[in-house]
């Protein structure tokens, strides 16, 4: 009995093109003007937040920071597509998602300034803290989704990672578990074309991330990661599908990291200005702005207001985190165990 061939569509799903035009009306999600404005405002806020972080870092007021510029649509579009009771599992580049789920901005700065207290996630946010080891958070999300399934909770886990992460065993083992146990997990790979200095074509001989889903018998989708409508639509569908018990999805958001990998990096060493410029022309924010202008829901006054608003929030956050009491050294001994073992108790005494 001949089997069906496996097929996967490698086209990039797009709704809003580089010029701010809707190219796929059929798929355009039902969004009120206010929804669209919210998207825009969050994307601007993320950009301002990020710019300020880079500035603070240059001034020595922040430590290593990983910019999300260029990836705002992928992050905000996806973050708006899951619910409050869903889990969000980040890598280190997801400040746009954090911002969308209302994480206090000052705490994000605090964390990126090397103060662990910044990762005290508010009670009403179901998020894991930032994961630094690339890909390591993926199987955690699978475990969380699995717990949701086992406990009959109406909650999906959404995990974020980069193109580089797909090379790690953690991705492989996690995604395979997700397939086998059909857990409600949505895998969002922001393929920003680079893992520090390693371009995607040297990361894997596969042409796309999406096709890696085939290895796990799960659905894989490619979407224009700079198109907030497309990302929103695809993630929303995947989350709904997961929630309905119909299994996990691997989503490749094709996007670009406009800045250095982190503030410790210098992209001029390994990529051309032409390439970066080419992607700047696909900027997710400019594109949405163009669309909104055409739709009559954007004008200069609105822009000023959005920008001022964002700047006010960010400057308040800056003030707040910079005026926080420094952490108490002795607190490094807390939260290691529920009850401090005598070994550490002794070390703690010694420290005092």
């Amino acid at each position: 009995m001949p089997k069906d061939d496996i097929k996967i569509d490698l086209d990039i799903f797009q709704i809003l093109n580089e010029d701010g035009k809707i190219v796929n009306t059929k798929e355009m999600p039902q969004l009120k003007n206010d929804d669209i404005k919210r998207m825009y405002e969050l994307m601007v806020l993320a950009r301002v937040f990020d710019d300020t972080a880079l500035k603070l870092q240059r001034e020595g007021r922040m430590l290593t920071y990983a910019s999300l510029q260029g990836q705002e649509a992928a992050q905000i579009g996806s973050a708006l597509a899951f619910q409050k009771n869903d889990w969000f599992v980040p890598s280190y580049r997801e400040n746009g998602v954090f911002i969308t789920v209302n994480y206090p901005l000052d705490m994000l700065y605090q964390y990126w300034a090397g103060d662990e207290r910044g990762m005290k996630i508010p009670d009403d946010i179901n998020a894991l803290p930032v994961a630094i080891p690339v890909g390591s958070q993926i199987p955690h999300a699978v475990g969380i989704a699995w717990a949701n399934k086992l406990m009959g909770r109406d909650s999906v886990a959404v995990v974020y990672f980069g193109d580089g992460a797909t090379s790690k065993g953690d991705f492989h083992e996690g995604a395979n578990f997700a397939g086998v146990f059909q857990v409600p997990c949505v895998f969002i790979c922001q393929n920003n074309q680079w893992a520090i200095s390693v371009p995607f074509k040297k990361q894997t001989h596969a042409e796309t991330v999406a096709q890696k889903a085939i290895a796990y018998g799960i659905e894989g989708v490619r979407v224009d990661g700079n198109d907030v409508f497309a990302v929103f639509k695809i993630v929303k569908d995947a989350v709904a599908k997961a929630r309905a018990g119909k299994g996990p999805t691997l989503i490749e958001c094709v996007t670009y990291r406009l800045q250095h990998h982190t503030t410790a990096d210098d992209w001029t060493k390994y990529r051309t200005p032409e390439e970066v410029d080419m992607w700047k022309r696909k900027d997710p924010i400019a594109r949405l702005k163009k669309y909104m202008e055409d739709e009559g829901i954007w004008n200069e006054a609105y822009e000023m207001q959005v920008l001022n608003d964002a700047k006010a929030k960010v400057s308040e956050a800056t003030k707040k985190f910079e005026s926080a009491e420094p952490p108490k050294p002795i607190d490094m001994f807390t939260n290691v165990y529920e009850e401090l073992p005598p070994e550490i108790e002794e070390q703690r005494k010694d420290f005092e």
Partner: protein
Amino acid sequence: MKMNLVQAIGLALTQEMENDPSVILLGEDIGEDGGVFRVTEGLWQQFGDNRVIDTPLAEVGIIATSIGLAIAGMKPIPEVQFDGFSLPMLDQIYNHAGRMRKRSQGKYHVPLVFRVPHGGGIRALEHHSESLEAFFTHIPGIKVVTPSGPYNAKGLLVSSIRDPDPVVFLEPKRIYRAIKEEVPEEEYTIPLNKAEIRQEGSDVTVIAWGAMQKIVKEAVEKLAGKYSVEILDLLTLYPVDRNTIIDSVKKTGRCVVVQEAPRTCGYGAELIATINDKALLSLEAPVQRVTGYDIPVPLPKLENYYIPDVTRINKAIEAAMSF
């Protein structure tokens, strides 16, 4: 009821699963097959697919999804099939299980129990005979427990399952079926910070854990009362019961540490350092280390020459006594 270690662990698992619906088991071949050591025999039949879970062959997946499960409210008990295959899991244990509480500032914790058949002596293939406790005890944020017999196995496992922090539970596979003891059906727990004095004595302290307890007992029996030997059974390696160790060494002034793992940077070294810290002046002889060698555990034909045995232990006791 008289039980061996396998049965005692099985009983503890059964009872805790009956008590607490969030307890689940996951590992390779632990379901229908009952596990390669038969520890989980019957549990899949009793609790079903959703609680006794055969996973894909992927150790990182097992431990890392367990971390996620634990964070989200389950009490997963992941199993690795043999100690030698736990090495890929160290990353997730070190970088995540032991740190999630810290990283989340106390918001999340990782109440999992990682079951590891531990050590050699079963004439098995390569990588089936490792003793990795020195790795686990060096990792902040986790506890390390190792029973030495059926009775304490049950009590320690129940405590481990109820512990809010990640526990590595090292099961001495060599004595899985070698010791039978009365093990009560009734619930009891053994605290995760207490060593036990297996035999009181005044001449020399012998410290061992896990499968080595049995060999130490045999060695001391062979001495036939020549020396008054105090035998300590650590049970929990981190946090370790330093008071009992120090009190004993202060009393006897001599000490022998028995460790199956390779010598260098083994757990025995930490015990010697602890004694150095707190009882140096009581020492009348260097602490003797009886250990595996700094070589891979040999295949079965030579394995017995590698693992500490009665002769080597008694040689060390003599060395301590005659120093």
